[in-house]
């Protein structure tokens, strides 16, 4: 279980988060949505221990701040929005960095094959010897996801759930790879792991997520299932413009047609 209570966080003099409460269960795909600058990424960075926060974050019933860095690495993987590299590493060298932690339980033969399995999973087989710095933004993002998958190669370890934190994992991907990445997150949750992703695409979120946290100006304004959160009222209030929900007959999911978005206030 991930249990964050009264998370407050300031950057400089500006307070970004105002007492945020968030619960995420293993086995579930949780997404954080909201307008630009509402504090989604900041919240994620607090949950991964990157930014000092006030309040408490309990990860698997342990205080995050009390868990040593190496243990945290065995417990959760993090994918940032983008990861520029300083030196000319090849793709396979980057993916193997995921083996530094979290795979202590993996056998030597598994450690050998994991990077290749991870690359196949993100559809980058054949890219092993390419230089990371020469790839497109979307390809780099998938290489980093493969690195994270190397680290979090299974959803649980010794019965305890492991966690994936993804910051806008599909923002630079084409539609086919968006679907791949959502499926990876879904599979991880189905294996007993927990996924927390910051998302911008509301339709993708509706199609894949179990639990949705809607934020506005550093506060959570709604959370629950897609049916509970995706109301015209909730979304219009959070994004500051009129939003109409429609329901295409196929799956009965709420669907947001981009053309239906009104002029922002």
């Amino acid at each position: 279980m991930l249990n964050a209570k009264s998370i407050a966080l300031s950057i400089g003099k500006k307070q970004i988060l105002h007492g945020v409460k968030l619960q995420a269960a293993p086995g579930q795909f949780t997404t954080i949505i909201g307008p630009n600058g509402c504090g989604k990424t900041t919240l994620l960075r607090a949950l991964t221990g990157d930014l000092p926060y006030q309040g408490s974050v309990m990860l698997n019933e342990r205080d995050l701040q009390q868990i040593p860095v190496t243990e945290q690495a065995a417990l959760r993987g993090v994918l940032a929005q983008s990861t520029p590299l300083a030196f000319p590493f090849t793709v396979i060298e980057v993916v193997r960095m995921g083996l530094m932690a979290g795979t202590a339980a993996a056998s030597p033969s598994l450690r050998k094959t994991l990077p290749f399995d991870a690359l196949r999973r993100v559809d980058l087989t054949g890219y092993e010897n390419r230089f990371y710095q020469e790839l497109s933004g979307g390809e780099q993002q998938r290489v980093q996801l493969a690195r994270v998958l190397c680290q979090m190669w299974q959803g649980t370890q010794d019965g305890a759930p492991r966690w994936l934190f993804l910051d806008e994992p599909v923002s630079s991907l084409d539609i086919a790879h968006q679907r791949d990445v959502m499926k990876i997150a879904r599979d991880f949750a189905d294996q007993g792991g927990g996924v927390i992703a910051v998302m911008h695409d509301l339709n993708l979120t509706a199609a894949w997520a179990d639990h949705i946290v809607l934020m506005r100006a550093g506060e959570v304004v709604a959370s629950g299932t897609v049916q509970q959160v995706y109301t015209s009222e909730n979304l219009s209030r959070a994004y500051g413009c009129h939003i109409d929900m429609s329901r295409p007959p196929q799956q009965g999911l709420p669907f947001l047609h981009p053309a239906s978005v009104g002029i922002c206030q």
Partner: protein
Amino acid sequence: MSMLTDASEAVASPIPPVRDRSHSARQMILILTGLLVVTSYFSLTTGAAGTSLMDALSALIHGEEISLRDKVVLWDIRLPRLAMGILVGASLAVCGALMQGLFRNPLADPGLVGVNAGAGLAAVSAIVLVGHLPMAIREATGYFLVPLAAFLGGWGTTLLLYRVATRRGQTSVATMLLAGIALGALSGAVGGILIYQANDDQLRDLTFWGMGSLAGATWLKVLVTAPVILLAISVAPFLGRGLNGLSLGEAAARHIGINVQRVKRLSILSVAAATGAAVAATGGIGFIGIVVPHLLRLAIGPDHRYLLPNAALLGAILLLISDMISRVIIAPAELPIGIVTAVLGSPVFLWILLRRRGVLDM
């Protein structure tokens, strides 16, 4: 079963052929070790004293008696000079690689960002102002005063630089380079004041600090310098993995289990100690720290686990070669070695800049 393996792919797929640069990196260690031995031999037999030393050396190896003159030249001049060259060359190159890994930038170098200048200024201050120091300090430090001052100067400059360039855990490369220029200029200005204060003997020492030289290496200097440099360099192998992780950025390094703070502290401490000791022993010698790691990255890739030991070897080799050039090019006089490394290194540095033009505009 791992989520990475689908049931449909139960039969393990063969691992595709992958260029393994770690293999050639390990071979490179052997090649460079061999090259260092060869270079050391030529370093011992090159110089104003003539080629008779080749015979002397072979006589020595065969256990025969050699003349007192040859003995003095070999044992008291060439050997300590060789030892100092290896120590300082290795130190400069490893410190360059450490600093580049730490700042995540292939252009970072203790010489470029003013650490050498800080260490040199402290050493120069110690030389010129020694008469003004309390007797107790002079007696307590003795011969170690200048190296100690250089060490503290290098350390202080590194810490100051890091503080100035780091904000909220993010180190700005542009700020670091500009702060380095500012610190270098400040060192130059203070150095100028000291030159006015200096007497003739001190002036000669000051020139030596400015351009660097392996001449004047004695066994005593080697014995004082070696422990500091060897200790600092011996930390490097433990930093390889951490610096690799750090090339993903500080947050991502932490996410994969790297104790970032520890890697940073150990790197800074090593760079400050080794640069301070090297500058104290031989003055400011530039460009080895940039050129060596860059050439090695082209040859064996950026993996710091192999880059650091190879840098130590190639740094030693390049400094010995530069030293030989400095000894023979205007023989029987000697050119300061810093001039040779600058002439050899600055074109390479420009070449790196040109290759990275797009990346630097950030």
